[in-house]
């Protein structure tokens, strides 16, 4: 399906970016005296060894957590910073859709800001004149176009910003977290507009940790982690890889977190997710009946422990909290182990989720110990939004 283009529009060859980090910011006097090498500064590779080719009309996503190097990558694609090694080539005009509305001035009216921002994005005055009506129509703020933007709601601000950016009609569009803003209707409008641009041959690079947006727009995804490219390929595979990487990171850092190795009467020895097919996974479809397995070892005898389970969405909002409390529980002897299988039909919408298992114990159940979180991705039904997929049926008469 993905054809290898002959001349990629965006190309990265062995690209790496190294930052010089000063331990204290350079001062004029001491800086001038600091000719000796390696004095109080460390060199740090933000990202290294990236190869990527994106053809005309292709859309590629880049995922990675904060600090993975994805913002540096984006900056290089925008031409804002140069690579330390390797070659970055962009054939055509780039418009960044990064924090739309950057450069908007609060005192200026919407109309004035359109001209300023349009010019910043590389449009000529003539082009802005020609597309002005289109921009206003798209942003849906015709009544306020001559009002200073400081009186705009954040939604209006974003709409106008997006409208200008897409009107710039770039060959390459860089999208950074933009779809997370605005109301739902406008998000769908933006999404449709980006699909039109894709169809018209615009090359799009989406950098995000909103996997929802990535999944909707990109057939191909590059995963960056700790400054290195880890995977490049079909989106679903990439998202699985991404979640595995997040998992690894958690388990390697587990020791530092409270609850990991604090010696208490109870120790959580495992917390794992198994898909509908019974295999360990980090990527499930909405509605799948998945199983979380909590394993605990009891160092001391505990009278009536119970298992708890918390599922939270990307924003950290608990979606589901439950426990075995009402089931009652028998005492557990010292040295014994228990396993609890939590079977959940994941009727939730698309997005990243985290789950934690735990054990509560003590005379009043006031003591508790939690597991590390398990992160996973749920692929939901297209266009279903909200927290839960309640699976409504619609009857139109």
């Amino acid at each position, binding site marked *: 399906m993905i054809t290898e283009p002959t001349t990629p529009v965006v190309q990265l060859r062995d690209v790496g970016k190294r*930052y*010089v980090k000063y331990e204290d*910011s*350079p*001062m*004029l006097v001491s*800086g001038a005296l600091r000719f000796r090498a390696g004095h109080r500064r460390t060199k740090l590779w933000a990202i290294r060894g990236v190869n990527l080719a994106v053809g005309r009309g292709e859309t590629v996503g880049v995922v990675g957590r904060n600090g993975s190097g994805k913002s540096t990558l984006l*900056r*290089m694609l*925008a*031409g*804002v*910073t*140069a*690579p*330390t090694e*390797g*070659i*970055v*080539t*962009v*054939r*055509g*005009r*780039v418009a*960044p859709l*990064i*924090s739309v509305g*950057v*450069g908007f*001035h609060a*005192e*200026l009216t919407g109309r*004035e800001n359109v*001209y*300023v921002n349009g*010019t*910043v*994005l*590389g*449009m*000529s*005055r003539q082009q802005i004149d020609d597309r002005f009506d289109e921009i206003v129509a798209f942003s849906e703020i015709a009544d306020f176009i001559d009002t200073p933007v400081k009186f705009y709601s954040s939604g209006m601000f974003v709409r106008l910003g997006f409208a200008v950016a897409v009107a710039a009609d770039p*060959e*390459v569009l860089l999208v950074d977290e933009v779809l997370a803003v605005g109301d739902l209707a406008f998000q769908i409008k933006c999404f449709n507009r980006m699909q039109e641009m894709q169809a018209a041959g615009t090359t799009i690079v989406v950098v995000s940790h909103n996997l929802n947006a990535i999944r909707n727009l990109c057939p191909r995804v590059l995963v960056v982690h700790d400054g290195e490219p880890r995977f490049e390929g079909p989106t679903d595979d990439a998202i699985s890889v991404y979640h595995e990487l997040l998992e690894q990171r958690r388990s390697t850092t587990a020791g530092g977190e409270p609850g990991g190795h604090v010696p208490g009467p109870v120790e959580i020895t495992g917390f794992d997710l198994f898909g509908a097919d019974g295999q360990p996974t980090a990527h499930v479809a909405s509605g799948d009946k998945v199983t979380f397995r909590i394993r605990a070892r009891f160092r001391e005898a505990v009278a009536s422990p119970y298992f708890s389970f918390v599922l939270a969405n990307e924003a950290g909002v608990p979606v589901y909290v439950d426990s075995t409390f009402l089931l009652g529980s028998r005492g557990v002897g010292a040295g014994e182990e228990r396993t609890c299988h939590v079977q959940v039909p994941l009727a939730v919408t698309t997005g990243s989720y985290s789950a934690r298992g735990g054990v509560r114990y003590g005379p009043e159940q006031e003591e508790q110990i939690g597991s590390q979180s398990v992160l996973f991705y749920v692929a939901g039904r297209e266009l279903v939004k909200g927290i839960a997929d309640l699976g409504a049926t619609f009857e139109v008469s």
Partner: protein
Amino acid sequence: MTRAAAGFELRGETRPLGALIADVWASRQLVAILARKEFFVRYRRASFGLLWAVGLPVIQAGVLAVVFTHVIRIHATTNYATFVFAGILPWTFFSSTISSATTSIVDGQDLATKIYFPRAIFPLVVVGSNLYGFVPSIAVLYLFALGFGSHLGVNVLLIVPAVVVMIALSTSFSLMVAPLHVYFRDVRYVMTAAIMVWFYATPVIYPLARAHGWLHRIVEINPATGMVELFRAASAGADHGWPVALAWTIGWTLAFSVGAALLHRRFDRVFVDLL
């Protein structure tokens, strides 16, 4: 297409100077619109609006004229009010331009970290926006000159090279210090201090001929002196030594330009790393 129509290729951090200059030239429309924005935003909320742009130097010159003719007596060749205004005008432009230009790249980081255009645009925008307020002040200068009875002849034509020299000096110096401030954030304070000293080292409130000996040498090689004297030559009348001072000014402008070119060539694409 205004700029960067063909995209770009980045290998290494240094930019070829030719490409950089071409890019700056291609961005002239951007400079114009940003300068306009800067200027009008500055006075938008003020009731007297743009009058302030002209009013402030007039008030400053008025105060100095009163102080130096009635309190401390300095005898200038022509009317002192015109003499001071002819000096204040380019000096105010120069000093306010270089002090805002110093921090311009750092102040522009919201834009700079998102979108590429040559970073030289930021100081150029400062020069441009200050020009908006400057142009009407020239009319005020000649109203002063006429009102106080200066002899105006063909020397009035010197106002054109005077403005050119002022712009060139301010631009080259601004382009040179703005990159330095990205790396050394104390440059802005160094500039504030320097401007204070620089004002007295420039014959704004006293005639060039009044400085003697080693002080005269310093005032003469001062980059700003030639600029100020050229404005005098175009209005109130300059001192005899003004061509020498002007030669120094032009020399300095070239030196600043070379410094600016080297800095931007090396750091244009990596300023953002330190913002």
